[in-house]
């Protein structure tokens, strides 16, 4: 039984990592698009970023050195990632639920990291973890784990309630959206309940983490906790297969699209890539395009349909 649970957890983590990497690679390998930035672009020089300005405000901008203000990006990215700043600013009602949900998940991710450290320490440096450090870690992962689970469950329940009752959301809610939120509530609920109700003989979080690392199948896992672990593992594997993997998409949507203002003339790599795209052969069927599957984008762009075959 315990071995099966471990197997499912390993599989869940593996699917999460592989699917996330594959998704990121898939997006990264898409052709670079035409520029489509949206201001404010926070890596602009601070003086311009304040009002949302760009280097186009500078006379003869192409003759001036371009300074990229990474600190400006961080000032936007960190509050966005940690506190969902845009949602807070533009959709406060939903933010109350979504922030609680997401911050709960962050705490749970932190819990896993702390547990991994504690488990590795217990296995490799048992003397160190036996004392004060171990006690601190125990307090931390217990607190973050329980707080995280409670926050994520409350947040998911609030989001589910909105999805089912708010007319602004209902029209756009698919069965899958309901399932996803219910899945979070069920998995985290079972995990939290299983942990709290595991009884005196049940394994603690650290024992389970050590067991996972050592593949120690002798650890008895009570029923509810087993269910929580299995559901949690399935959930972890499921997330990157769905639109909930927006933690990956967001990187591309912000850095590659919204904030990509790199002038083509300043990048030989961009020029090389786009010269390649102009050799693609489209098959659009409208007559004015004049595409036949043999002509390239460069050919098509150089054709005047008002005087050529596409007229």
């Amino acid at each position, binding site marked *: 039984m315990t071995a099966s649970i471990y197997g499912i957890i390993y599989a869940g983590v593996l699917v999460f990592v592989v699917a996330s990497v594959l998704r990121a690679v898939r997006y990264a390998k898409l052709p670079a698009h*035409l520029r489509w930035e949206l201001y404010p672009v926070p890596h602009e020089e601070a003086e311009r970023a304040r009002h949302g300005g760009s280097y186009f405000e500078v006379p003869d901008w192409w003759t001036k050195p371009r300074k990229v203000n990474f600190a400006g990006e961080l000032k936007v990215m960190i509050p966005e990632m940690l506190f969902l700043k845009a949602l807070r600013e533009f959709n406060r009602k939903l933010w109350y639920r979504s922030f609680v949900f997401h911050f709960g998940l962050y705490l749970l991710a932190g819990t896993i990291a702390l547990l991994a450290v504690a488990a590795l320490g217990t296995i490799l440096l048992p003397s160190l973890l036996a004392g004060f450090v171990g006690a601190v870690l125990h307090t931390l992962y217990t607190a973050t784990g329980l707080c995280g689970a409670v926050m994520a469950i409350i947040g998911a329940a609030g989001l589910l309630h909105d999805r089912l009752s708010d007319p602004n959301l209902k*029209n756009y809610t698919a069965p899958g959206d309901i399932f996803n939120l219910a899945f979070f509530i069920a998995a985290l609920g079972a995990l939290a309940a299983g942990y709290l109700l595991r009884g005196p003989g049940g394994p603690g979080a650290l024992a389970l983490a050590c067991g996972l690392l050592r593949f120690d199948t002798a650890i008895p896992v009570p029923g509810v906790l087993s269910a929580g672990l299995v559901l949690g593992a399935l959930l972890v594997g499921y997330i990157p297969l769905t639109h909930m993997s927006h933690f990956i998409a967001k990187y591309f949507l912000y850095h590659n699209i919204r904030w990509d203002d790199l002038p083509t003339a300043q990048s030989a790599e961009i020029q090389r890539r786009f010269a390649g795209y102009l050799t693609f052969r489209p098959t659009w069927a*409208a007559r004015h395009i004049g595409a036949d599957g043999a002509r390239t984008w460069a050919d098509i762009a150089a054709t005047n349909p008002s005087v050529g075959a596409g007229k």
Partner: protein
Amino acid sequence: MKEAVKLGDMSRPGRTPLAHLENEDLMRLPPPLEDPSKYHNWTALAPHTREKYECGLDDTCALNLPQPQTKEEEAQLVAKFLSGLEKLFTRENNWTFLQPLLLTMEHCAKCQTCSEACHIYEASGRNELYRPTFRSEVLRRLYFQYVKHGGLLSSLQHGAIQLNWPLVARLAELSYRCNLCRRCAQTCPIGADNGLVAHELRKLFSQEMGIAAKELHDTGSMLQLKAGSSTGMNAEVVKDNIRFIDEDTSEKTGIQVETPWDVEGADILLIHNAGEILAWPENPGAFALILNAAGVKWTLSSELAGYDSINYGLWYDDAQFARVALKHAQAARKLGVRKIVLAECGHAHKALSVIADRVLLGDLSIPRESSMTLLRDIVMSGRLGLDPDRNDFPVTLHDPCNLVRLMGVVEPQREILRKICPRFREMEPHGVDNYCCGGGSGFAIMSGNNFPDWRFHVSGRKKLEQILNAFADCLDPSVPKYLCAPCSNCKGQFRDMLAYYNLWEKNRILYGGLVELIVNAMTDVRPGYIEWEWH
């Protein structure tokens, strides 16, 4: 209360419109337009239009899409749509925007945060049909069903929708109920872009099915590529018109103005939106006067499309876009100018400076600069004698979306106004948070059927509210007021919308460009360049 439109209604058989707006449904306006019972009534679509064209979306019809006569014809059109849908998600056909489109399709959380940012949704009285996510969700469901070939599980995960001709016809119209201002995208916590979705739908219809608004295609980009300008002016006609403008400007200002043509090796190739030359000749006249007075070495080009900066392909068709952008760059290359400067036209700014940037390679990569930046440089340099007292009237500034939110040219025009207009006041919100004029993405030139009613009642409404609020302290007609809009398309929208609501006659709100204000303040020029007459 009206029942909200559902996504599934898009497939509803028949041609009964899904949405109908009454004046009472619309967002309330401030004084003097606070009473909806006094608004224009909507012009009903003519019966022959309803009989002949697909008008099953709402109260208007932008495309005049002919009704198929047989079921077979319908099926063929649906098959063509599907073929275009697949191409929209392939590298060879849509490398231009595949990455942002795919990410938007796969990661919208449907949180509706974007809805409150959309001026059309708000102005319509929050009609469901005009939510930024409505058309996106239809496309998203089609994407998962027909491009990703999702089965039952996918339908449960993403939702399903029935694909039929009524849906395709309505979706084509719905792609022309968005100004592409991308204010929605600015607020999306994930970064999804519902404005892009409308853009890509328009491309699908144009590039695969040959369906586009005739003002953008037939009498827009096609005419520009044929005659040289979407106004229909060829090089000889445009030169004649500019000569008349030079004469008028010289006479009016007391300063001899001559516009240089085709000067090889000039520092600047200035490209106007040719609509200015016909509709607002005082604008190119003012440009010529300012550039000459500042000692700038500049020229216009008489090459095909080289004298008209418009690029309507930006709004509906990548191939048409690239063709026109290429013409602009080739005109500059031929003259060997140091840089291209875009005059007062927002979409031309973005088209040539930003969107075309990746495809103007090699010797076509000629630097592009905004006239706002150049003018700020001239005004602040002290090369012109300027007397702000000549502009002692209330002035507010409209931020063209393409110039500001989508290109980041925010401050130069403000610096000028703060220097030469002592009673300048901002609209709220402004800068990159501005609202579209309601004429964006081609609407300003689309006047078929009763589309202007929709433009002025719905898409322009939020901007109208902003204008009235900006002038709330001086609405009395004894005080002339100036709405500065450094963009031809925006001016076209303001000309028509202010007239529609009679705001010049009743409240003396005039609109115009930025250069007119500069010339109006020039001490070397006879006073009164701005004539305070409706035009």
